[in-house]
């Protein structure tokens, strides 16, 4: 009996350091954030309980809907771009894996992932500068009349999505490459003996076996899509007008520029629910088959 008690204490002590940080700075804030979202917070320190008013204010604010639509648009462009490019790059790297040079190619594709978001934002702002950006100059040299990406409402978000794909695709590439290596050779050999064409092999064998990896990449990328902030802040600051103002930026501005902390916290809760919902949908859609 005593021994058993001692064992429980020991297990608790092993977990406690982690659990303490997790409760205080991860779980705690989610609940605290919901609590804050039910109040109107005065910058001078007074708080008044107003129930769901912050949420109603959000629902009535066209600017919130604009930010929500922009976020969805960004996600709809960025997620397929990031996951798709990641998959294509992984297939390239996997195909050429017997050559030494491919390890360097892989390094090249992966490196942008190690950059901090402000570097990514600054580089692409410079690349896409309306007057001297190398991208626009090159396109003009080729006889194309390109839109002034970051200054045009229709093009700002796609341009940011492209920059984000450049930044994040490399990590998905590693993920898919690892999954490709896990597919046993026998599968391909069997398919070969049966005379399957390569598109057939890809769609009937490779893609289904990549499902867990694709699910993981999709969940991961969905989250990054919905919390996009730094790139937007640096490349367009939400502009032109509010054409690229996304939810995280709305949250930041309401919280720290207009000091409407309660309303900003409500946006945080909304973001949390969106991410939770989408994750559950993608689990259902792609099957719950990871080792979670």
């Amino acid at each position: 009996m005593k021994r058993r008690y001692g064992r429980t204490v020991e297990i608790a002590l092993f977990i406690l350091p982690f659990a303490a940080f997790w409760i205080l700075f991860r779980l705690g804030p989610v609940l605290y954030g919901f609590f804050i979202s039910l109040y109107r917070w005065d910058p001078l320190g007074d708080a008044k309980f107003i129930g769901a008013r912050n949420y109603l204010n959000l629902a009535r604010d066209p600017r919130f809907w604009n930010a929500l639509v922009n976020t969805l648009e960004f996600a709809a462009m960025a997620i397929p771009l990031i996951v798709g490019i990641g998959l294509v790059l992984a297939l390239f790297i996997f195909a050429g894996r017997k050559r030494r040079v491919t390890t360097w190619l892989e390094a090249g594709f992966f490196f942008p992932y190690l950059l901090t978001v402000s570097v990514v934002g600054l580089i692409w702002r410079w690349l896409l500068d309306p007057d001297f950006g190398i991208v626009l100059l090159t396109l003009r040299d080729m006889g194309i009349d390109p839109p002034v990406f970051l200054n045009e409402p229709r093009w700002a978000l796609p341009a940011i999505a492209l920059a984000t794909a450049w930044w994040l695709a490399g990590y998905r590439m590693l993920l898919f490459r690892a999954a490709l290596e896990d597919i046993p050779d026998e599968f391909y050999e069997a398919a070969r003996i049966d005379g399957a064409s390569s598109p057939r092999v890809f769609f009937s064998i490779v893609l289904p076996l990549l499902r867990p990896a694709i699910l993981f990449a999709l969940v991961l990328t969905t989250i990054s899509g919905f919390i996009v902030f730094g790139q937007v802040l640096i490349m367009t600051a939400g502009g032109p007008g509010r054409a690229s103002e996304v939810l995280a930026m709305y949250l930041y501005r309401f919280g720290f520029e207009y000091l409407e902390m309660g309303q900003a916290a409500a946006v945080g809760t909304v973001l949390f629910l969106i991410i939770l919902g989408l994750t559950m949908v993608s689990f259902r859609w792609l099957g719950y088959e990871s080792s979670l």
Partner: protein
Amino acid sequence: MARLRVVPVTAAKLGPRLLVAFAAALALLWVAPIAWMFTTGIKSAPEIFALPPTWIPQRPTLDHVHVVLTRWPFLRWTLNSVVVAGTTTVLSVLVSVPAAYAFSRLRWRGRDAIFLVFLSSMLIPLEVNVIPLYFLMNRLHLLNTYPAVFLPMIGMPIGIFLLRQFYINIPGELDDAARVDGCGNLRILWHVILPLSRPALAALVIYMFTFAWNEFFWSMIALSSPQMFTLPIGLRALQGAYDIDYGVLMAGAAMAVLPTLMLFLFLRGSIIRGITMTAHK
């Protein structure tokens, strides 16, 4: 071992050489923005805006580097980043190792349920929590200090997830033998498990360090005085004052990237292996 061959089947038609050549061209295009950042940082002001643009600086200059170093506490930002990322990494390894051990090598009631609860929080990004974290840090009088930045990054479930995956695959006979010899859990963890799990530890260190080194949104809110900025926040401040001075901006960005690039060139293999492990599921 002959590994086959999905794309290679296509490749056989295309010619493998052609495929690699195409991938190489794509890779060059992929790193071109980084090269462009480095060259812009050492171009003279008129050359930056010269038409047609020049890829190789005609008269390289360190003027912009000088501006970044003298008008901005750039070295202090670097130091802050090292302190924040280093502390985050060390502390998250310290708390994750025993927890992962309890979740993998010990048997107890409710273990898997509790683990699942921790794990599901992996999906909560730091970003949705910035308002409550701001209130919390304000109450703890920690705003604008290092702990405000690193505390929320320590309890990240990726740590126990990654280590647990690794610990589970270590044969149970090893600690059974140690237990027969009278070793307690702590000694088993220290003398048996830890030495065997170096790759997983390396992966966790690489993951946490890059994560903390690059963190942006929360740091921007938690840190208010330029002396306390980390590199990502500092670079943004650079932009605020020099909206159009791409020379200074690119010099600053390049200086922030240089250490990462150097490390990556030296430790390329282990960084890619480490990151791949965090991706393995």
